[in-house]
């Protein structure tokens, strides 16, 4: 189908989008949700399995307490109510990567419900309602071999790896988000980004979208202003933050073109394609499976002790947005400056550098300046650039103590990054310390005065600004190892001028 898509500006001028997001997070627990098998990523197929996660006849699940705790902490961080009584339910459908041909999930009695997450888009706060946070088990992975595309069509064999089967999975479902207009794609992305940061701060998951430990389904619909919400589609296979934004945008454009032509949106699942940025239809929801949910009789209901929940709540770490706001205030940064710190991924590095003794300004200068430049040049993450926050703080300490000037400090930093040791080591080994011996400096100053009589005359006649030229000359003879301020004072003193 080759339809010309309308322009985005026109679409958002005519239609109002409503979005919703379902996010699946693989928890970083040591063991699986209902058995003792390890959860680490990778491993030979079908080596991290046992009768329980293979669904062998007779096996029974036992719920993982660490996973329940992590889910409650996620719920608390997302301002949810925590259920006093909650149950697992069976979601019944046949699929070979689901060992029992039902998934243990939660249905009408989720662990956490009715919360929100505030996200910032273009400096504005958008509150995303959270419908529910529930716990379930992951499925195995099906591999279709022999075909060209790795898809089931044309494959000669289908192989199933159950290593992933039974890994605890938390599903976080938003309420529908209307009213974001043209910003809908960015809001979707900002939400997933913020959610990822919250999950990372909680330490409950490694939240790697590329490895599938954070997976996102995006619901999108369009309606005319003042009319009821439109029919929604659910886009799956959205595996990066950028794709979240692209998927919403692409689906808005596609739906608008259908509606413009007088067509109707089919309620269906669609698949997002990273390469083209389009979505294509999957299974139609109209003929969707009846999952025949019912309470899981093999597990006793969960009744989290309110005192325990209160303890978990009290022990929550400061969440990313509040943490960032507090740092911004402490560091005295404008919104714009804070944004550049965020964009550089330097928040935690600067924070650690300040904790190690540097001023916020100095820490920011090093990380956003010299070190960001190096990271860009070498194509590595800032955190992996080769200098630690402690080393940066030490370097700045040497500058503050007058042992290094700015230029020398950059040279020392080069040595640190090259793995030559701590800033003090590099300074000592490369003999880069500022020359503070006044006798030697006086000789160099006198030499410079003698070599530049014209400049000396200007200074004597009161044009002290000309001293810069002599400072430069002295710095040259001392190979930069003099303290420029001291040199300048000496020059003025020798020439009897007032600074």
């Amino acid at each position: 189908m080759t339809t010309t898509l309308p322009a985005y500006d026109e679409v958002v001028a005519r239609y109002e989008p409503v979005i919703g997001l379902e996010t699946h997070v693989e928890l970083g627990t040591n063991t699986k949700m209902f058995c003792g098998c390890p959860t680490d990523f990778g491993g030979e197929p079908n080596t991290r399995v046992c009768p329980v996660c293979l669904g062998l006849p007779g096996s029974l699940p036992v719920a993982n307490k660490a996973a329940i705790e992590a889910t409650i902490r996620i719920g608390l961080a997302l301002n949810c109510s925590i259920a006093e009584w909650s149950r697992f339910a069976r979601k019944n459908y046949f699929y070979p990567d689901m060992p029992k041909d039902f998934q243990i999930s939660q249905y009408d009695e989720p662990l956490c419900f009715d919360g929100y997450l505030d996200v910032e888009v273009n400096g504005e706060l958008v509150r995303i309602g959270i419908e529910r946070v529930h716990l379930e088990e992951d499925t195995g992975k099906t591999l279709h071999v022999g075909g060209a595309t790795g898809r089931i069509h044309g494959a000669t064999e289908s192989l199933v790896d159950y290593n992933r089967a039974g890994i605890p999975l938390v599903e976080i479902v938003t309420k529908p988000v209307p009213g974001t207009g043209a910003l809908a794609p960015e809001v979707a992305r900002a939400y997933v980004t913020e959610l990822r940061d919250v999950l990372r701060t909680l330490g409950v998951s490694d939240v790697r979208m590329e490895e599938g430990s954070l997976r996102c389904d995006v619901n999108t619909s369009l309606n005319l202003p003042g009319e009821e919400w439109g029919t929604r589609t659910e886009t799956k296979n959205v595996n990066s933050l950028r794709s979240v934004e692209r998927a919403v945008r692409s689906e808005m454009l596609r739906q608008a073109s259908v509606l413009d032509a007088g067509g109707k949106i089919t309620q269906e699942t669609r698949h997002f394609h990273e390469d083209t940025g389009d979505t294509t239809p999957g299974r139609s929801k109209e003929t969707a499976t009846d999952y025949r949910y019912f309470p899981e009789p093999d597990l006793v209901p969960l009744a989290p002790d309110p005192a325990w929940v209160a303890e978990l709540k009290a022990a929550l770490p400061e969440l990313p947005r509040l943490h960032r706001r507090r740092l911004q205030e402490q560091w005295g940064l404008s919104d714009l400056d804070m944004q550049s710190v965020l964009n550089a991924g330097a928040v935690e590095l600067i924070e650690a550098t300040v904790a190690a003794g540097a001023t916020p300004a100095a820490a920011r200068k090093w990380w956003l300046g010299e070190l960001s430049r190096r990271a860009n040049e070498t194509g590595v993450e800032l955190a992996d650039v080769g200098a630690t926050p402690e080393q940066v703080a030490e370097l700045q300490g040497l500058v503050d103590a007058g042992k290094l000037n700015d230029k020398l400090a950059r040279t020392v930093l080069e040595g640190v990054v090259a793995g030559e040791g701590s800033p003090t080591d590099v300074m000592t080994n490369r003999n880069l310390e500022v020359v503070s011996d006044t006798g030697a400096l006086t000789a160099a100053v006198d030499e410079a005065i003698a070599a530049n009589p014209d400049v000396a005359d200007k200074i004597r006649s009161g044009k002290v600004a000309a001293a810069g030229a002599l400072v430069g000359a002295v710095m040259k003879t001392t190979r930069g190892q003099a303290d420029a301020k001291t040199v300048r004072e000496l020059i003025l003193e020798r020439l009897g001028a007032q600074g």
Partner: protein
Amino acid sequence: MSELIKLTATEIAGLVAKGETSAVEVTQAHLDRIAAVDDRVHAFLHVDSEGALAAARRVDERRAGGEELGPLAGVPVAVKDVLTTKGVPTTVGSKILEGWRPPYDSTIVQRLRDAGTVMLGKTNMDEFAMGSSTEYSAYGPTHNPWDLDRIPGGSGGGSAAALAAYEAPLSIGSDTGGSIRQPGAVTGTVGAKPTYGGTSRYGLVAFSSSLDTPGPCARTVLDAALLHQVIGGHDPRDSTSIPQPVPDVVAAAKLGATGDLTGVKLGVVTEFTGEGAEPGVMAAFRESVDALAKLGAEIVEVSCPHFRYALPAYYLIAPSECSSNLARFDGVRFGLRVGDDGNRSLEEVMSLTREAGFGAEVKRRIMIGTYALSSGYYDAYYGQAQKVRTLITRDFTAAFEQVDALISPTTPFVAFPIGARTADPYQMYLADLFTIPTNLYGGPGISVPCGLSDGLPVGLQVMAPTMADDRMYRVAAALESVVGTFTPPAL
């Protein structure tokens, strides 16, 4: 016929402990008996002679080494084919698991091994424990040793018949709606359904998770209690297992055997003494009630008005759970696979496998359950049945405020001829009319032989509050002390 096979488990364990016989000798005697009669009885689906003799030798070695052995060390046990046995075929009476050798032992079997009992093999059952006559086994029916043309009850007909035929002194059953107690009643043996959660379901191939309860079968009440003690107790691998010790059922059985029931108040369930049962069954029951009264028990009538809804509620809850539990038999990972010719789709292979692998009764229940859980029908069927379950539980709770235990006939009729009830599922379902309420409530129940009707055994059921399993053993042992045990005609 060796005299060893006529002994009770208690007697065998005593002789083995004293060195007057060996576990190997006892085991061989039972294996010989199986070889002699099981072609007519068909209690066993698989006899593990090698494994049994090896286990028996280990017991003898341990005893020779001066080790102190448990109360059932060296005693042979037959295990219903619903429990997984590591490396030993486990079919659940179904073609769909033919040839499957599980890679793990169920908790019950593990505990049996740890206790030094000797597993003889796996007993026949209605496919997936769905049935009341063992006629729905995919491997052919088991025959009642009292009359080989009659059914031995079900689903655990194999475990009960093995006892009555002296092929084993002890056996394990599982009771979802009466599958331990009803076969016990119609074979003249003792069958106990423990409190739900009192025995581990880990490794019990699920029929209906919220009802399935493994339990002991024996020829005497004390033997059943000893076996109950060995297999019972908390299991961290079963979430629904109760984290409390098993009540002292052995002491209770011994106390009951003194024949004194002074101070014990028993309630006869009014709803189960009406027209539902055969006259011969009611006559034996009435005589037993009089006997219990003579032992000092106070007898009162107790009405449990919601018990009449138990059967329909059960036939929604159990099929609903089974429709989900049996989904995993899809031909992908284990058991039968049909139609995988490289051309058929996955869905076709799954369908063909299930079509070929499941019997008619299993399919019937899967379909009923699938329907009852369907969107739009859930509230009217599964939801409503759960409400009935609550009402039945309230009936029990109210009854146990008045009496210590409830009594009734175990089953409305004695063993019927093979083939008599297979044409009409409802007639078959009626066999469990009196046993099902206990499953819905979750409490313990025991069937103890109480007399004969036209030469066929009748059982009396004692029902107790949850985790008061000891009470039913006391009452059952007291009755046994008066009426004695029942021996079928020689095979």
